[in-house]
């Protein structure tokens, strides 16, 4: 390959489509880096604060499609107050200046104003596709300007409009199902949708006191009938280790497994035990698992299993789980491919937080809320790791600069969000956020 002319290399690289692979290509050597960057058509920015928009356009001057994610995942669940940030304006502005041939913008969890949409509508002659997922700040007026001004528009999709209610989109696609169908309905799915790859079962009623709907049996039935399952999102009232072991055995190809037992810390419905072994079975059996969300009663053991077996895991969501710092430490030490770690309401403290210091640059972002970490530990992390932005959300009652530093450092941090960045501290923090 060394003596091929650049045009040939470029031609070959042109067949490499995925972001992952393209990123790998760019690391081979300087020549390939430059060929690749000039040839790249599509870039995905997983954190809008990780890099300045201008820098992106300098490296990739010829992109046609840009995907950007803003707020952390837990923003979806009201854990982040309004005004936190993630405005799309700087990105749209810099695209408008550097990239008039832009055809597609995909924004997720960003604040998009009508003015911003207008800028999009008026800046790109060939604009074809706008996808907004979990975004806010705009109205139908803004969307209307896109529709009227973009003559080549093929696709505007505000994913909030995706229908709920039960329908099964063919035999290969995902299924959106409300759980008022119940376990029997899922058995019907299991017997008729043998090619099913993605399953999502939402609670018909999110109020915890009404425990109707599906149980572990529904999911077991689907796992038996639909062994091509790749992705599961399942809200239910109860679960057992036996069921999880069965599911793990039946669906070793799972790449995403998100289980939400509605009541936090619910134990095995039959044995009363923690669900460590069940989730342990999932990570042992599903070697390609990339995403895992856990719930139910879980001790440090489940994290030991995850650290040991979940080699391909990229995103882990933890809620109301674990006993000691060891839980978090097992994951930090074990999961070498982890990119996103989000933890809420779990008893992990400073020792766990600081144990991961060397890991956080590789782990793109860490969210911790309602845990046991203190301001002092966060400050110390921020000082040691200049390539991380360490942001804490302060409660109204106390301020960062209080005179008594020792007492201040001992204060518990309610919400921590840290992420790797080459853009330095962001300059648009609201009052309730402090960048350490």
């Amino acid at each position, binding site marked *: 390959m060394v003596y091929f002319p650049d045009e040939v290399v470029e031609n070959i690289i042109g067949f490499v489509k995925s972001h992952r692979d393209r990123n790998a290509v760019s690391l081979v050597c300087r020549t390939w880096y430059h060929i690749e960057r000039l040839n790249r058509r599509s870039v995905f920015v997983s954190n809008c604060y990780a890099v300045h928009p201008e820098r992106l356009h300098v490296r990739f001057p010829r992109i046609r499609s840009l995907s950007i994610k803003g707020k952390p995942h837990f923003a979806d*669940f009201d854990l982040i107050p309004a005004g936190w940030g993630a405005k799309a304006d700087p990105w749209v502005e810099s695209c408008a200046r550097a990239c008039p041939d832009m055809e597609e913008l995909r924004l997720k969890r960003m604040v998009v104003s009508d003015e911003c949409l207008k800028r999009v509508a008026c800046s790109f002659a060939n604009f074809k596709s706008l996808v907004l997922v979990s975004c806010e700040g705009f109205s139908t007026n803004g969307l209307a300007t896109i529709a009227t001004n973009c003559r080549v528009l093929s696709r505007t999709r505000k994913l909030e409009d995706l229908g709920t209610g039960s329908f099964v989109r063919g035999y290969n696609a995902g299924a959106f199902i409300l759980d008022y169908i119940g376990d029997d309905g899922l058995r019907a799915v299991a017997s008729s949708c043998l090619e099913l790859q993605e399953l999502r079962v939402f609670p018909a009623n999110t109020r915890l006191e009404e425990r109707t709907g599906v149980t572990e049996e529904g999911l077991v039935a689907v796992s038996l009938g639909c062994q091509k399952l790749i992705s599961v999102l399942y809200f239910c009232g109860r679960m057992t280790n036996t069921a999880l072991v069965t599911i793990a055995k039946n669906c070793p190809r799972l790449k995403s497994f998100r289980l939400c037992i509605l009541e936090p810390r619910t134990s095995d419905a039959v044995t009363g035990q923690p669900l460590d072994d069940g989730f342990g079975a999932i990570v042992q059996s599903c070697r390609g698992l990339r995403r895992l969300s856990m719930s139910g009663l879980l001790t440090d053991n489940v994290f030991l299993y995850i650290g040991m077996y979940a080699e391909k895991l990229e995103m882990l969501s933890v809620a109301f789980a674990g006993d000691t710092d060891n839980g978090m430490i097992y994951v930090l030490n074990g999961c070498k491919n982890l990119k996103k770690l989000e933890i809420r309401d779990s008893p992990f403290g400073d020792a766990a937080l600081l144990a991961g210091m060397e890991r956080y640059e590789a782990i793109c972002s860490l969210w911790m809320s309602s845990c046991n970490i203190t301001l002092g530990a966060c400050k110390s992390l921020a000082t040691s790791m200049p390539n991380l932005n360490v942001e804490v959300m302060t409660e109204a009652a106390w301020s960062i600069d209080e005179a008594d530093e020792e007492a201040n450092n001992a204060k518990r941090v309610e919400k921590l969000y840290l992420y790797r960045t080459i853009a330095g501290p962001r300059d648009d923090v609201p009052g309730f956020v402090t960048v350490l």
Partner: protein
Amino acid sequence: MSVETERSSTESSAASGLDFEDTALTLTLRLPGPVVSSSSSSSSSSPDLDRKRASSDAAADHSPLAAAAAAPPAPKARVVGWPPVRSYRKNALADVAGSSKAAKFVKVAVDGAPYLRKVDLEAYAGYDQLLRALQDKFFAHFTIRKFGDDERKLVDAVNGTEYVPTYEDKDGDWMLVGDVPWK
């Protein structure tokens, strides 16, 4: 997380002087402190937040026997952002499941409006939606001609004056006809 749930419940029920629900099927727990509810028979539906927290801890600790024996669970404390369902989906789910809920109509008066309106609080998922609905009800009528609005209007064929049907309710307020479903 409380391990001594049973002990604390006995202590607290003694302290508060309340009867421990002794039916075989009910597991009730209370933390020390005042209990709001006056009707003692419905203690399982008390809105006291401390009680809810205790019972949610208990749910985590319960043995299989207790789980099998427990009657419909006591109301749980609302945890922020839990279960993790996006709010738009919660709203959509509520719409679908929705009309079984009893309506909660309240009267709304706005200074300067010639008549009052009634809104069903159960129909809105949050303050944003409610405010938008109120805006539609009061200001759309006066400032912007709503195209295809479904207020019933009578138009005088001769001079084009519009009339809306109203009635006087038991409080002596003038209300627009149509806000409350006929049945």
